[in-house]
């Protein structure tokens, strides 16, 4: 079971063209900073995303995400990395 860093509906874009969700849906809000790579979505459909920005809103903080690929691709990349001897 995958635990995402921030729950998000990756279908949902706003006027910025980025996916948005709420900071309240992060398992650890301190992970959610502009430029950070995070796992976003849900346990059925996780994806890797870059945090674009955090926007204050009267009812919470909106997080914009730039989805950059499937988690599978990033895990495959990590497995290819061989530490130098």
């Amino acid at each position, binding site marked *: 079971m995958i635990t995402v860093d921030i729950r998000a*509906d990756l*279908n*949902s874009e706003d006027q910025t063209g980025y996916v948005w969700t709420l900071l309240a849906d992060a398992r650890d809000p301190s992970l959610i900073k502009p430029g950070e790579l995070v796992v976003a979505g849900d346990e059925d459909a996780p994806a890797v995303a870059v945090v674009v920005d955090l926007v204050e809103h009267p009812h*919470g903080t909106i997080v914009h995400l*730039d989805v950059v690929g499937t988690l599978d691709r990033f895990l495959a990349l990590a497995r290819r990395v061989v530490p130098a001897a």
Partner: protein
Amino acid sequence: MSDLPDLRDHVRDDPTPRDAVVLIRGGPDAVEKLVAQAERVRTIFVLDGEPVLGISVYAALDDIGPASVDGILADKLVTYRVVHLVPLGELAGAGFTVLPTFRRPHMTVVLGGLDRVEPLLAALGPSQRNPHYGEEVRRRKGRLT
């Protein structure tokens, strides 16, 4: 008067899509997921000054290009292994209002209440494999204006 942004200000002035236009949503969906997202929308938006429950979908408005079925599956929804596809006319026939919101081809299905989540899930139908899953994602960097 609400202090929240009004979704109406983000409705595009698009021609009304044909009933045959296919709406696509990354899945698999479930009642809990739809409720969670509808509640997020209600947290940050209103519609015509009133609380609104909404669910995002993409409409295959073109035969080719980024707003076609393949274009949407290969870009917006490329990280979804499975997707739900439903003709606009079916959702409209089931009593849902679908608004063209934000950037083309994004649309918002407006729910009259949380009791409409289960009918929406039923209307979305079973999930289907996304043949473009895992293809390279085109970064959206620089879209913020």
